[in-house]
């Protein structure tokens, strides 16, 4: 597992995190090259089908990052993204998806160092988790009905969303 290099995609908003990642470059900070950055106008634009599609394309992990709360260029797009993530995370948990592989965070245009840290930490974390080869199994797993009791009685975990 030592030589495993995780594949990481990043969905970022144009106004904060993309600019923040630019700043990381301008400040010549270093981070692992495992990440591919995809530019969106706003995190509110990020359809979670795109998130699924990214895992379908073979990534091991995904960073979703936008402006800090109240700093959204479009006033409220990041709140929509956050709210959608709260709901979507539950759905993914039910499906058996490993939600530890999605890193939801805020990086502003002034936080070049934070971006480097976010990527570095995500890569470290994914190295621990290993390649996400189970994803294909989830896709192929048939839904069983009735759902077993464990799934039905599962406690809704309320974890802090903002990291």
């Amino acid at each position, binding site marked *: 597992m030592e030589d495993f290099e995780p594949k990481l995609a990043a969905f970022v908003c144009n106004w904060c995190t993309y600019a923040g990642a*630019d700043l990381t*470059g301008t400040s010549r900070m270093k981070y692992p090259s495992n990440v591919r*950055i995809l530019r969106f106008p706003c995190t509110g634009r990020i*359809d979670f089908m795109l998130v699924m599609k990214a895992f*379908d*394309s073979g990534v091991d992990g995904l960073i979703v990052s936008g402006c800090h709360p109240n700093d959204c260029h479009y006033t409220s*797009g990041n709140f929509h993204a956050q709210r959608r993530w709260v709901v979507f995370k539950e759905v993914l948990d039910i499906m058996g998806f490993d939600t530890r592989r999605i890193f939801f965070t805020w990086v502003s245009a002034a936080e070049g160092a934070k971006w480097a840290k976010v990527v570095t930490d995500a890569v470290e974390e994914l190295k621990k988790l290993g390649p996400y080869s189970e994803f294909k199994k989830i896709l192929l797993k048939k839904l069983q009905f009735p759902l077993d009791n464990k799934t039905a009685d599962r406690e809704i975990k309320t974890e802090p969303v903002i990291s």
Partner: protein
Amino acid sequence: MSRIGVFICHCGENIASTVDCESVAKSASEIPGVSFSIDYKYMCSDPGQSKIKNAIIEHKLNGVVVAACSPRMHEPTFRKACAEAGLNPYLCEMANIREHCSWVHPKGEETTFKAFEILRMLVEKVKRNTKLLPIKVPVTKTAIVLGGGVAGIQAALDIANAGHKVLMIEKDPSIGGHMAMLSETFPTLDCSQCILTPRMVEVAQHPNITLYNYAELESLDGFIGNFKARIRLKAKSVDPKICTACGVCWSKCPVKKIPDEFNTGLSKRTAIYVPFPQAVPNKPVIDRTQCTYFVKNGKCGVCKKLCPASAIDFETKDEIIEVNAGAVVVATGFEIKHTDFFPEYGYGRYKDVIDGLQFERLASASGPTLGEIKRPSDGKVPETIVFIACAGSRDKAKGIEYCSKICCMYTAKHAMLYKHKFHEGKAYVFYIDIRANGKNYDEFVRRTIEEDDVNYIRGRVSRIYESNGKLIVKGVDTLLNAQPVEIEADMVVLATAIVANADSESVAQKLHIGYDKHHFLSEAHPKLRPVETNTGGIFLAGACQAPKDIPESVSQGSAAASKVTILFSNDELTREPQVAFVNRTFPPQYSSCTGCLLCIPVCPYKAIEKEEIKNRNGEVVKTVAYVNGGLCQGCGTCVAFCRNKSIDIQGFTNEQMFTEVMALNF
């Protein structure tokens, strides 16, 4: 068929030192759909751009990917180059291989591979790009100036003198703001009213300025160049057109014991009142919260009976008018911290502990004491005054970390004025640091200390209490080995912190602009865009952005005005066509939009409306969403919300984004 041209920039050594640009160009030529690929030292230079233009013409390219720096840097440059060669600029995309690759990774095969992969993703995306046309929107050449203080007055006059219409909205009965309340101004000691009132009159008489006093902004919709504002004209109960301001009404009004806001509570006013004698417009209004007629259901009406011009009408109601404007200058000003914010200084308990603004009124020739410094408690001239700078400011414990900026100067001015008016008096100033960083400012403070013999003590005051009719000020002198100091004072003046208006947050929300943690309104960039906000067409002036003195407020007013006139110098604005649209089929009732209209509440710009599709008999056959391209700013939140992907955003369509994601490869 795609004929994509790929251009890889070395950016001198910036990219080429870690990425093997030549091999990227070579590999790129093998991507399906790429018909031309080249690397060059400086793509953004003139010869570099010519290479792109020539290739577009020669190879009949229908898409361009420039792998260079961040699109936030040079996307407009390369799109313009493409447009010059006859290619729709929106068929050009940039792959960021500098900031996101060469600068953050070491030299090596991996970095080169990543650069190639970034490029390949963009090639896949550009294959799905469509031709887009920029959106042209007209500009309404009328500006709204919110607030009639000195910053607002300056902005309004500058815009009006440039030949554009200005609507000034002032919440009080008179314009003038805080500056009208001041006695003299530092560092020249010229009288504040003398320099301000002529400008106030100019505003009222200017043919291009419409003044809405006693009015408030109700809401603002629209976008740069095309705002729609609703203004609430509060009921004045006096018809300003008929009223001659003879003064009978306010001299006969029986309600005489209302604390006068203009004199900071140091005198009383009537329920029908003109805030101060030099008010503009100089017409009275009735304060309906205090007037007996309104409080006690029609029992009084003295002013109406006595008014010789019959200008008083109790039946008038708040009126809401709608206006169109192209730009907004926000100059809503500030407040100072007062009342019970300083329990340790006894403010609110001891009448003779006052704030800086109250001292201004005491020192003002038009103030309640006609310019004589008298104690509010017994009217005696104080023989010892203690001034305390930084009351609240720069104090984490009070929640105000920032410097209020003007207190050092006005405290020096207060001490000087007091000494000028009462030579035998003793003045002490407690300060933390003296921040006198303006033209002739430090000289002014030195004059106060050296010529006017004001005693400056570096240290803070811990407590003030009353004893034998004196206010005992207990402090410390940090320059004298932190020795405790005790002064028996007759009056204490607190240079209280400047804070944002209490309604600053709601104003910001109405205008869709940002504010900081202290509720001061946020500029777009602290250094390079100090008067613009993040919302196009809305500008800031004066102390609503941060504490400012008069010269700074005036210059920011002028700066905001120049930004407005730049905006108004065009008849049309060009907007990026990156907006949402609803897929429509023909005939429209077969559109995939089901009319769930989930997109309407999520749109932050109210750009989505309900549209009814009718048949020839006028019956509604289908309801769909409709995007107003003029209002849409292109965030795409609606796209993610749409259940059946009927709404899409140009430039970041589902097709483009899914293609980009599916092109992920490691």
